[in-house]
């Protein structure tokens, strides 16, 4: 396949020069993170179909998401983005721990962004949930785990009928909300977008997003458990 020279050149510069520095790592991490933020919206809109009474609607959407070639490419990019986000996050965090070998005895919590202090931990918990999630659905589709991948609607409804699973689900999304609360505005700062007009708007959208999206996800098992 022949790519225009400009794209090859861009790629060369990006990987060769940019990747070397901490700023480049941060940019890649933020881009991957923002991509995941956008994906969550797509995921939520499909999940909301679970609230409908017709399993076909959801199953058709799920089949489309796993069958259509463009979505398949998107899936590879998504998994790649997730892995890059995690690898960059851990690498940067280790560098940060090394940068302060001796801790302070006393610390005043002066940080203006509370959740930013716990990103590695909230991220870790979300990752554990993702693994459970993959075990339940994605691995079934790939054939690693037994299950009927033509009826994700039934599988989801079955899972949401266990209170134990729902509690894990709700806690995970609460933690994801904490993660997103800082992540959203932080990504824009890393992109270099910070000014008097935009930043307050970005921060507000970030707060609304980090509340509404996890709440939307959490609402589905709630409705299924109590009202279906």
């Amino acid at each position, binding site marked *: 396949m022949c790519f225009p020279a400009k794209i090859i050149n*861009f790629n060369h*510069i*990006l990987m060769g*020069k*940019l990747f*070397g*520095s*901490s*700023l*480049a*790592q*941060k*940019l890649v991490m933020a881009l991957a993170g923002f991509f995941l933020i956008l994906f969550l919206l797509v995921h939520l809109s499909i999940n909301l179909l679970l609230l409908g009474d017709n399993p076909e609607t959801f199953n058709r959407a799920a089949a489309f998401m796993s069958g259509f070639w463009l979505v398949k490419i998107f899936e590879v990019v998504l998994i790649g983005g997730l892995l890059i986000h995690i690898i960059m996050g851990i690498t*940067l965090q280790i*560098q*940060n721990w*090394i*940068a*302060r*070998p*001796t*801790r*302070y*005895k*006393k*610390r*005043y919590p*002066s*940080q*203006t*962004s509370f959740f*930013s*202090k716990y*990103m590695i931990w909230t991220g870790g918990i979300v990752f554990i949930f993702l693994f459970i999630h993959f075990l339940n659905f994605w691995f079934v589709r790939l054939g690693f785990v037994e299950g009927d991948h033509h009826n994700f609607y039934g599988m989801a409804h079955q899972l949401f009928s266990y209170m134990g699973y729902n509690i894990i689900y709700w806690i995970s999304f609460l933690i994801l909300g904490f993660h997103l609360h*800082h992540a959203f*505005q*932080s990504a824009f*700062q*890393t*992109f*270099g*977008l*910070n*000014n008097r007009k935009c930043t307050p708007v970005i921060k507000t959208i970030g707060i609304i997003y980090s509340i509404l999206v996890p709440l939307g996800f959490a609402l589905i098992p709630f409705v299924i458990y109590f009202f279906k």
Partner: protein
Amino acid sequence: MKITLDIWRQKSPNDKGKFVRYELDGVSKEMTFLEMLDYLNDKLIKAGDEPVAFDSDCREGICGTCGLFINGRPNGPVKGITTCQLNMSVFKDGDTITVEPFRAKAFPVIKDLIVDRSSFDKLIQSGGFISVNTGAAPEANSIPIKKEIAERAFDAGICIGCGSCVAACKNASAMLFVSAKISQLALLPQGQTEAKERVRTMIREMDRLGFGNCTNTGACEAECPKEISLWNIAKMNREYYKATLG
């Protein structure tokens, strides 16, 4: 008033170091924090003990020499001041004050509360020069600069390189310091010629010196004695992407 001090004592760079508690009576509310330490040292010397080593120079908040970590934050509980501008009137009789050196791998402790901040000098050196003739002050209006731009450059230019940002940051990142220098010069016409080279080399040097990475927490901005804005970090990010991808 009478106060209790928990002060970090460390004989040399390789010494393990420990906190030593001092009960200090007769502290006046009119004293500055550094005068209170002078007063303590006077008592220690008279008693035949080793005085507490700490840095200070101008004692009027413009040189950036005197940073201490007081009660869990750089320069103590008052916003927008250096350690030398901190007054004892903010403390109460009977208070316990913890005094620590700035902690970062790039700021190793030399003795007691004195840290080696020469990594900041190396960062400045890595930024290089501007190829504009200096000499006599030029006519102010020969290069017109928008008021907003001039103000932004000035706001970045007032950084005194004290290291409070590094001390406050949970990652010991020097991004606020470096970004203040980068954006000050990148905003003004005099800094344009070497702008790309400057941001690349300063970032490379910042990473090499072992500072942590910025996680956009904002502690640096909250604790900076000159209240340098996080806006500068975003500006530096833009400058870096331009220099690397452009």
